[in-house]
């Protein structure tokens, strides 16, 4: 269970991020907010620490790009979803679905290693069905 202190810590971190976004020029802010919205829905990040890092990385990108005068179109490219998905991949181990990815991998590993062990030879049976 999450402690109250950690919850408050994460909230504070989120507000700090929000304050950074608010200081961006209007178009950059709009774009960051739209990407954040997509990341929260598509990402389903369950780990608060990873979520914090992700949003801070996002803010870094847009602060730097705004300072360099890079137009928003050049930041996200022609396919913003493609960009957002690429960006999101870096935080995949914080996703809710990550637990299921591990579960799937482990299940296959177990089945595969059971199969690669030498199998007991099936006993030859005689006509009446008794070994």
């Amino acid at each position, binding site marked *: 269970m999450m402690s109250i202190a950690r919850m408050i810590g994460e909230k504070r971190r989120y507000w700090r991020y929000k304050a950074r976004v608010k200081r961006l020029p209007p178009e950059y802010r709009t774009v960051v907010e739209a990407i954040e919205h997509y990341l929260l829905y598509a990402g389903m990040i369950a780990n608060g620490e990873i979520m914090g890092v992700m949003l801070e*990385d996002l803010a*870094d*990108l847009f*602060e*730097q*790009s*705004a*300072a*360099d005068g*890079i137009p928003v179109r*050049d*930041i*996200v*490219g*022609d*396919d913003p979803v*493609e*960009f957002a998905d*690429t*960006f999101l*991949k*870096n935080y995949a181990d914080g996703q809710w679905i990550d637990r299921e990815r591990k579960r799937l991998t482990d299940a296959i590993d177990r089945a595969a290693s059971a199969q690669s062990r030498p199998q007991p030879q099936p006993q030859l049976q005689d006509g009446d069905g008794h070994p």
Partner: protein
Amino acid sequence: MGKQMTEMLKGTLEGIVLAILSAQPAYGYEITAWLREQGFTDIAEGTIYALLVRVEQRGFVDVEKVPSEKGPPRKVYSLNARGREYLEEFWTTWSFLATRLEQLHEGSR
């Protein structure tokens, strides 16, 4: 650049970025600008940034924050020993792939 180029670049862009960094340390914008000059005109700044985050997470680059005249400090990336090792591996894989594809190409002509 078309959709096909985007798809093909997906698997190789990380190696390309490391190769650029093996020549000299750079920050994100410099890498994108260089790629644009080389004809990769559709590459998004954000895509390169996401890759830089990735290679940093994987421990292939060292990052130094350098103060800049305008805006926040810039993150300057340089390839480290682990990154160099990974880049070697990338070129080996690339050579294998390029040779096999060229053989396919020759065969289909």
